[in-house]
């Protein structure tokens, strides 16, 4: 240790000398001796530069120059890790590999340079493989989308100050969606060595910035501490209710060498199981379900795994209950006869029992809010309707950043994971359902199938209006797309209802497509225009990493949701309703998204405003995607 400190001091002195020499030289060039006096006397004497000819006019400072005195200094001590040493970040990569990360999304940053180098050299740039991102917001959103397609977290690395600031919005989005993004950031706090701060931009409590919307964070000060916190963070993140986690990796801890034989052990703690509802409450819920005449299952973040969907199908078919899916997860087949999502309001209104399964905002499922100057609410449900909720949302609530609304009165609230509780609920229903009740369930299912068929037929009629209009109607866009993908193994990685948001869908869809790549799925995104412009560099990321993704632009040339909000304000204030679009349109000039995509190496066509041109363009783009590359079709659409 003493030797290392001595070497470090020698290196420091040489660096100081060179800096001062360069400063002195530059000062002489700029203004003669006046600036020299600002230097300490010993430095000025030590670095007195050779006399320079007087300059007739001030010259702008140039890059530091090597002085004669500097040239005279001998070579410094070469500092490299010995063969029997590993860097701290090598060990960090070993730990991260043990957690099974496939990818690490990052925009490079100096504070995690140690980890970066360990990932590509020690780790061989495999599991995790670096995905080069052009914005930290994109990196986190990619991890968000990846989880929703793959069901496991992606690693994200970022710079501790500005990188995390860029990432914060996307972390908030992931938190709101209860998605476990696993994030590490670098920071030079130097606490392990306790020298004065050397890194110009550091932060004392880096995680503070996002602590309100992450589930847990830690700042390990030793490799043992890191190993335990890394495994703990993973388990915390993926145990329902899931949410992002953050580890702050000290720069020195990453870069210091450690004897290879003295590395700490990597913990093998398994991921905790998800909490199930207690037996008595599940039995009570089953009794209520069996007794109900018109139950409806409202689902939102229910299916954590593909098995979640199978269980929900089994329960719905067992009791002949309609399902209303808010689609935050892939919960229920959209074309299942019991899917009542297209007549959700009526289904909830008709129900005598509403069962909320992992519904983020249950109040909003059973009430409406009228958005006028004086807001009013109204129950969607009929009087006397019973309500049950099963959700891990009851286990986790935060104070500052909130994501809940009014408190809904319910008859039974089970604080447990929905998917984990379904097997025991199904078994209890099977035990309690008599033959008579099962006949009732079957008749009910037949009626619900008829109602969903009528709703689908009505949807087709609605879609026929403005069928040949230009710009292209969103229904026409969807139908043309469906015609091209319906026989493929397709995966919709972002869509109309999730795309009117700033900066999330585009990178999230690339993350989803990255997850789908190894499964050979055709990833499809319906991409809105305003969203794409927050961080369009992710197009380059998709091209660079050969991520196959078909992006079909729903380009309505506006931030249309906001436009409607401003219009509402004009009306409420009874003035200038013709000016509501100011500030929310993306016109004059129109953005050429196809050209932008092409500039980043993405195959692209458009803008297309004639619906007849859309089908052939989609076919060509899909051929590109099937070759393993991204493609974009810019479609100018109607506003909704």
């Amino acid at each position, binding site marked *: 240790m003493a030797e290392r400190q001595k070497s470090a001091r020698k290196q420091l002195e040489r660096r100081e000398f060179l800096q001062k020499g360069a400063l002195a030289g530059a000062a002489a060039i700029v203004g003669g001796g006046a600036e020299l006096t600002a230097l300490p006397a010993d430095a000025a004497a030590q670095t007195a530069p050779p006399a320079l000819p007087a300059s007739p006019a001030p010259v702008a400072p140039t890059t530091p120059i090597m002085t004669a005195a500097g040239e005279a200094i001998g070579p410094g001590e070469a500092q490299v890790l010995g063969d029997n040493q590993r860097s701290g970040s090598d060990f960090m990569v070993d730990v991260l590999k043990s957690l099974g990360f496939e990818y690490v999304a990052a925009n490079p940053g100096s504070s995690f340079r140690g980890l970066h180098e360990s990932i590509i050299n020690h780790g061989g740039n495999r599991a995790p493989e670096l995905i080069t991102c052009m914005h930290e917001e994109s990196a986190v959103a990619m991890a968000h989308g990846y989880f*929703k397609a*793959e069901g496991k977290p992606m690693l994200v690395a970022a710079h501790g100050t500005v990188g995390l600031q860029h990432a914060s919005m996307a972390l908030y*989005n992931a938190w*709101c*969606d209860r998605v476990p993004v696993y994030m590490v950031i670098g920071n030079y706090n130097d606490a392990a060595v306790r020298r004065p701060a050397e890194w110009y931009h550091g932060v004392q409590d880096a995680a503070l910035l996002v602590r309100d919307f992450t589930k847990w964070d830690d700042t390990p000060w030793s490799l043992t501490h890191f190993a335990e916190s890394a495994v703990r963070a993973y388990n915390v993140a993926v145990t329902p209710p899931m949410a992002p986690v953050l580890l702050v990796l000290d720069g020195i801890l990453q870069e210091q060498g450690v004897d290879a034989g003295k590395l700490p052990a990597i913990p093998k703690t398994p991921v905790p199981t998800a909490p199930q509802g207690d037996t008595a409450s599940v039995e009570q819920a089953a009794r209520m379900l069996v007794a109900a005449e018109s139950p409806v299952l409202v689902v939102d973040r229910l299916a954590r*795994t593909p098995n979640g969907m199978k269980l929900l199908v089994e329960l719905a078919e067992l009791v002949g209950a309609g399902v*209303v899916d*808010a*689609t935050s997860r*892939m919960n229920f087949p*959209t*074309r299942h006869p019991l899917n009542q*999502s*297209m007549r*959700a309001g009526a289904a*909830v209104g008709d129900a005598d029992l509403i069962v909320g399964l992992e519904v983020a*905002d249950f109040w909003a*499922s059973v009430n*409406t*809010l*009228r*958005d006028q100057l004086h807001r009013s609410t*109204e129950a*969607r449900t009929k009087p006397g309707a019973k309500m049950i909720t099963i959700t891990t949302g009851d286990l986790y609530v935060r104070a500052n950043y909130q994501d809940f609304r009014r408190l809904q009165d319910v008859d039974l609230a089970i604080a447990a994971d929905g998917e984990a509780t379904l097997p025991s609920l199904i078994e209890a229903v099977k035990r309690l359902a008599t033959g008579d009740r099962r006949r009732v369930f079957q008749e009910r299912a037949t009626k619900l199938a008829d109602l969903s068929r009528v709703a689908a037929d*009505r949807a087709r*009629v*609605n*879609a*026929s*209006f*403005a*069928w040949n*209009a230009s710009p292209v109607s*969103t*229904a*026409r866009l*969807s*139908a043309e797309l*469906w015609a091209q993908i319906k026989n493929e193994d*397709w995966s919709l*990685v972002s*869509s109309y*209802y999730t795309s*009117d*948001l700033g*900066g999330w*869908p585009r990178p999230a869809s690339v993350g989803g497509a990255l997850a*789908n790549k190894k499964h050979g799925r055709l990833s499809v995104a*319906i991409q809105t225009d305003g969203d794409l412009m927050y961080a369009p560099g992710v197009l380059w990321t998709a091209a660079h990493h050969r991520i196959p993704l078909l992006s079909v632009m729903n380009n309505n040339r506006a*931030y249309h949701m906001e436009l409607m*909000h401003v219009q*509402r304000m004009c009306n409420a204030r*009874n*003035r200038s*309703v*013709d000016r*509501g679009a100011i500030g929310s349109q993306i016109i004059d000039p129109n953005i050429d998204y196809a050209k932008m995509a092409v500039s980043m190496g993405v195959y692209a066509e458009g803008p297309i405003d004639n619906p007849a041109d859309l089908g052939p363009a989609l076919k060509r783009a899909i051929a590109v995607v099937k070759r393993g590359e991204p493609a974009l079709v810019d479609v100018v659409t*109607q*506003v*909704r």
Partner: protein
Amino acid sequence: MIVIVVALMINVAAQIRPTPQAPPRRTAPPPRTAPPPKREAPEPAESKPAPAPTPAPVQAKAAADAAPADAGAALYRKNGCYECHVNDAQGGPQGPRLGPNPIPFPRFVAYVRNPTGDMPPFTAKVISDQDLQSIYAFLQSRPTPPPVKEIPLLAP
């Protein structure tokens, strides 16, 4: 987990989500910021729920009213009707279809002035009855689509 949402239904899905929360901002979380759906409370839509072949007299009337309809098209856009009822008045997630068979004109005006659903009110101060008449002509002039069965892409 494959995300399999039937894109076909995008323009018509009536979601369970309630309405307008506090203005969903661009930074709000994806799942919770889906566009506010139309309320269950009926807004004035077409007088007929499903399209019917346009009778000859209506077609003749549409031709005769071409000028007001053209003016109405501009007013429909200028006053922001298109924002929810969409460019061709075909309706969307935020507002019902309005043409080609709108509800009777007096009811239309009454609703625009004093809506009972989520539609913002348009008083006489911000839009005149005359302009509403032009917009009404535009709604009447909307083309009737071909029957669904003649559109192969809409086959079940």
